[in-house]
């Protein structure tokens, strides 16, 4: 099913819904706010996981990070595009750490994290986090950042490989 099907709902020429609501939009301001908010997302993730996602270095905190080798990932998880492809992931090869990671797309971010390390919490943890409730000490149990999804995927793949 292609885009063309939805295009059956073309925007009518005289659609009243095509309008700007609050005057001109300052693109420069949008850009700055976008960068600032993304930076705060990264900072939240850093604190949540005691891991620096930009330099890919573990930090002091609740979680112990260790490098994963020989995941033997299914093809679907292999990155495509400008960052190149690795056809052998079984030999512990991984791309060199990329400080520019977060300037790339989130998809690259995702794949690289998945390859680079797994998360070992000090205490047992439910694999699937529950959606975020109000902030509380139950931090081990909720998805407090977008990286929680990487986390559960990592665990899933990792545990599958174990005998």
């Amino acid at each position, binding site marked *: *099913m292609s*885009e063309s*099907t*939805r295009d*059956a*709902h073309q*925007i*009518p020429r005289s*659609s*009243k*819904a*095509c*309008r*700007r*609501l*609050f*005057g*001109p*939009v*300052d*693109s420069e*301001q*949008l850009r700055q*706010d*976008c960068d600032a*908010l*993304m930076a705060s*997302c990264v900072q*939240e993730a850093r604190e949540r996981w005691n891991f620096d996602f930009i330099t890919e270095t573990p930090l002091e905190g609740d979680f112990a990070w260790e490098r994963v080798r020989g995941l033997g990932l299914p093809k679907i998880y292999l990155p495509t595009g400008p960052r190149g492809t690795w056809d052998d992931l079984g030999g512990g090869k991984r791309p060199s750490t990329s400080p520019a990671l977060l300037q790339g797309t*989130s998809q690259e971010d995702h794949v690289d994290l998945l390859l680079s390390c797994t998360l070992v919490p000090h205490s047992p943890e439910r694999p699937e986090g*529950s*959606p*975020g*409730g*109000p902030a509380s000490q139950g931090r081990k149990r909720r*998805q*407090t*950042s*977008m990286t*929680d*999804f990487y986390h559960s995927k990592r665990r899933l793949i990792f545990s599958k490989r174990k005998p």
Partner: protein
Amino acid sequence: MELLCCEVDPVRRAVPDANLLHDDRVLQNLLTIEERYLPQCSYFKCVQKDIQPYMRRMVATWMLEVCEEQKCEEEVFPLAINYLDRFLAGVPTPKTHLQLLGAVCMFLASKLKETIPLTAEKLCIYTDNSIKPQELLEWELVVLGKLKWNLAAVTPHDFIEHILRKLPQPNEKLSLIRKHAQTFIALCATDFKFAMYPPSMIATGSVGAAICGLQQDEDVSSLTGDALVDLLARITNTDVDCLKACQEQIEVVLLNSLQQYRQDQDGSKSEDELDQASTPTDVRDIDL
């Protein structure tokens, strides 16, 4: 050469799953988790400095128009509003970003709920090209991050079938009741008053208001008045008085909306854009 016949509805929908709808555990689980997806605070008081309640109504009304014109699934609009409210409850936002935010929320909700989602390009056209597709995509990531990727929020629509199933209505009346209830749910989403209400209460109140409204014209229900409210309240464990209050508020919002529509009809086209078409189209079908 292959010939393709495109006369059928191109949208694929799953058939209603009796295993999900006829199992009370599903309803109980929905009731348990629904509060997690409510905005964390009444953000006009504690977070936003630039954005006023009337601006939320403007952006919500615009979003509803876009969803209706694009024939989005019913859940898309309330879900998008849920994203909008949850984002605004956490992030102070200037009013010039509000329409972009509304577009991003529709973009996400449509992708989650529809087989053929709205495109970024189309949404940008609806903002009169005041934003670019690239900006929409960048802000999509921001919104996802701030919502912590929790997109599968519970909406009032999730409760409708569970409620309707337990009513003693004849089957042929159900589709009309459902249609009106869906319209009330959309109406509630445009009004900030309802933003902090649990979705189950909005759903229950909407079904109640739909039956009461229809009852005046034809016999749609063997239950009326207090007996109906009691039954509805029991289905979703809602407090009876809260439910009554909610249903009354829905009826008030409907009345206001209808009055607004009549004013617009009375040739006051010169009114500024602020008040333009603040009536969901389906409401026009409803007679009180």
